């Protein structure tokens, strides 16, 4: 089951990564757009169609689950399975980061990890 998840989701798109990350706290669709815009300093502005489609897919794969309602808007939160997937992706990014700096050299960033 988990092998299947890794195969279909990794490497993750930035879109998928940030949507999943935003659901660390219960949020509705538009809340995710605002949150991602804020934490990426306006670099990523997600389209509403993209959010809707991704949330539907994530819920079907149990990466997220409904977490009640706010002003008649459906809230979502990340599941344990979703968190596990995020960790796998972060491990992959860490590896890329370390290897990249090893080759380019001259940086001390890998000590931070």
């Amino acid at each position, binding site marked *: 089951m988990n092998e299947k998840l890794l195969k279909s989701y990794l490497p993750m*798109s930035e*879109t*998928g990564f940030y949507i999943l990350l935003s659901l660390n706290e219960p949020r*509705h*669709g*538009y809340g995710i*757009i605002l949150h991602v815009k804020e934490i990426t300093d306006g670099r*990523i*502005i*997600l*389209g*509403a*169609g*993209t*959010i*809707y*489609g*991704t949330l539907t*897919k994530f819920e079907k794969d149990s990466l997220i689950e409904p977490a009640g309602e706010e002003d*008649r*808007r*459906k809230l979502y939160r990340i599941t344990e399975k979703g968190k596990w997937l995020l960790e796998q992706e972060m491990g992959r990014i860490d590896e890329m980061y370390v290897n990249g700096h090893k080759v380019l050299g001259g940086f001390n960033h890998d000590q931070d990890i």
Partner: protein
Amino acid sequence: MIKIFKFWWAWEHEMIENWLEEMELNGHRLVETKIKGLLFYFERCNPVKARYCIDYQSKLTPDYVTLLKDDGWDLYQIGMGWYILRKQYEDERPELYTDFESLIARNKALLAILLVATIMECVSFGNMIWDTYNDSNKAMLPVLCIMGSAILAFFSFVITNVVMQITKFRKKH
């Protein structure tokens, strides 16, 4: 009120989106569409920049409607699962889909419906042709065969175009 008839296929949605945007820049705002999105009604307005997007949803859910409203889109119904969305903007042209993955997923959903329709068409025409064939009066047989082939050709044409668009998105992705 201005009435314009325009024929278009689903995969030519970008052409219609750009045309609607140009109309609004020239002071004509979309009011509604009729005949499954072939007849457009416009009213005079102050020229503004507005992005139009054509979307397909197999089911219109309250979640979809609320999210789009929150994000500043107006929704127009075309029919058969098609919608036109409009959002006014100043600087950056807004997009409804900001990744190719969701565009591919949307086209795949469309493809599934088309395939089911094609199979249903084959079954119903096959039945009709078989019944006529077994009938003593075979006068309708050629007509049915020609009609059946024409509809089948049309479906194949539509499916080919949707598949080509998915391939195009895959390449960009």
